[in-house]
């Protein structure tokens, strides 16, 4: 088993929480893991990414080679496209479709759609709307994790254990809200991926 995942978004969107849940699940499965993160200056509203590598055999590089990523999981549509050179030919892009526009030259909606249309394997979703509908409006990042879940090669119950472990100290209500968000994302992806 090998999954190389690029998590991307804008500083403050919560990609590290996604990484922590996946990491928790991967360790419980006895997998090897490496996770390169971005800390410091670029966290302030700039583009951020994390390289997350899971494998049943030891992992050499902390960085994913170009053309090697099995998945790009992005909390922001343009930020998903930033990492296309790292995506393998058969790789999937799972992206939130809600743009975060904090720069003057942000591309228009039509060009964003065109770029996604030329990719062979995508799951796109309005993670914020799904989060609101599942009564957990602040958990758009966990909705996205749910949407990526069927492609991660990890059992869903392991990921749910990860969510319990990471949000447990914030109380049962927060855990339940995040589990609901996760399941809603998961359901969306299954509809998209399976005919």
């Amino acid at each position, binding site marked *: 088993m090998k999954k190389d995942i690029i998590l991307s978004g804008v500083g403050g969107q919560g990609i590290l929480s996604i990484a922590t849940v996946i990491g928790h699940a991967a360790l419980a499965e006895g997998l090897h893991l490496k996770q390169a993160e971005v800390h410091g200056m670029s966290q302030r509203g*700039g583009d951020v990414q994390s390289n997350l590598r899971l494998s049943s055999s030891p992992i050499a590089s902390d960085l994913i080679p*170009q053309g090697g990523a099995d998945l790009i999981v992005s909390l922001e549509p343009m930020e998903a496209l930033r990492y296309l050179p790292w995506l393998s030919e058969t790789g999937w892009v799972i992206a939130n479709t809600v743009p975060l526009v904090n720069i003057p030259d942000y591309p228009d909606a039509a060009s964003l759609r065109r770029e996604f249309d030329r990719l062979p394997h995508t799951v796109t979703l309005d993670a914020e709307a799904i989060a609101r509908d599942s009564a957990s409006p602040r958990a758009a990042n966990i909705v996205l994790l749910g949407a990526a879940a069927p492609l991660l090669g990890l059992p869903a119950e392991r990921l749910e254990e990860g969510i319990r472990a990471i949000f447990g100290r914030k109380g049962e209500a927060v855990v339940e809200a995040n589990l609901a968000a996760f399941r809603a994302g998961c359901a969306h992806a299954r509809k998209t991926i399976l005919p």
Partner: protein
Amino acid sequence: MKNRELLLGDEALALGALHAGLSGVYAYPGTPSTEITEFIQEHPLTAERGIHCTWSANEKTAMEAALGMSFAGRRALVCMKHVGMNVAADAFVNSAMTGAHGGLVVVAADDPSMHSSQNEQDSRFYGKFAMIPVFEPSSQQEAYDMARAAFDLSERYRIPVLMRLTTRMAHSRAAIVTAAEIRPQNEPGFPADARQWVLMPGNSRARYVRLIDDNARFEAAAAESPFNAYTDGTDRSTGIVVCGIANNYLAENYPDGCPHPVLKISQYPLPAALVRRLAAACERLLVLEEGQPLVEELLRGVLPAPVPVEGRLSGALPRTGELTPDNVRRALGLPPRKTHAPSDIVAARPPALCQGCGHRDMYAALREVVGEYDRAKVFSDIGCYTLGWLAPFHAIDTCVEMGASITMAKGAADAGVHPAVAVIGDSTFTHSGMTGLLDAVNERSNITVVISDNLTTGMTGGQDSAGTGRLEQICAGLGVDPAHIRTVVPLPKNREEMKRLLREEIAYDGVSVVIPRRECIQTAKRKTKIRQA
């Protein structure tokens, strides 16, 4: 008991130091080194054992305090980002002369590609310059193991040891296995050779000869180190010298094993005998090293080499920026992997000051006031407020290194610039701004210093700031006229008041200090969350 833990390289090193019997960590925050000290601060062993873990005012005070702890026989760790080494350099280089008593390990976290820094300096040069051993982990496990090895080496040879990390090691997570034994702290005690701790010329001359002699022992230790390894290969057209995490990028490109002979280096001084062995076996050498071409330069020299040496200097690898699996792949002559073309609609998304940040209100006012003069210049400094250079503010003219705002404004004022305004944060001011302010006071320089006080060390994630609550006292103590130390709350509703204060203090012929003060909104948010939980 052995444990498997998922840790950042920074955290693995910190845990290794704790398990090696650490008595104190001394540090000033700086990306990518901050998490080492934070991990120690939060670890239960720290409270249990009374391990020192409070932030220092700057890297020099940290280095000196650690040297004092080492003098007293206990194990001390000093952590900083690469440019912090410049601040600590006087203490660091001379600590090689005094030597260590209790184990003394200095960690420098380098930032090739300048993710969060102003240059790409390679701290291995500092180790070579001071003539002390250097460790460079290639994995999180090595970062953990090396902490103990570095303390051991330090105590064996009574010498400070430098540990060099780079961003991808510091900020990448992997599972590590911890040691079976958690070592106790050293009992306090004083060095047997007291003379070498007094660096008067007569003592220093004798000590320097010993240090040079000891370098042969340091090199012998590196030659026998388990962290360095010679692995033979069948394809001898190229021999590869691989340093630190470059080892991982090499392995990534040869999943079934590298066909070339490889010399892995994670402990310096560079063991010359092993390099000669590799060179004798191969037609050419390729050096893969993160940062500046220290090893490549050493092997290449200036005279015609008996064996061609390639790397960053020859163009086999890019001269600047960090290594990646991809640029190493090209250097190895392997074909590129198939991938997707980059999207041409992706726009750059630079970092920005947070919405609601007090620095924003400060810059909004300052920019308007400065715009009223023909030749105003704003000298800024290192911190979140450096982002004031970007749109929409375009409010600063310089940013060089910690503390340079005040002294550069002073020098420019000496040259006739008016208004000469310095913009510096509270933590940077106590790090390196205070002494410069004293220079300005002593000469009655015509400068206006804005200390944008957010009550924390913001850019690195909200660590304690050394002068919180005492900035006015510090400025007055340094001799600034209290009538010209003005405070204001930087909020949109106070814009006019802030502009008035700035105009008045710019008009004053002498040193004035304006302190816009409002808590960093990130730390404020975190505190609210903690209260709610």
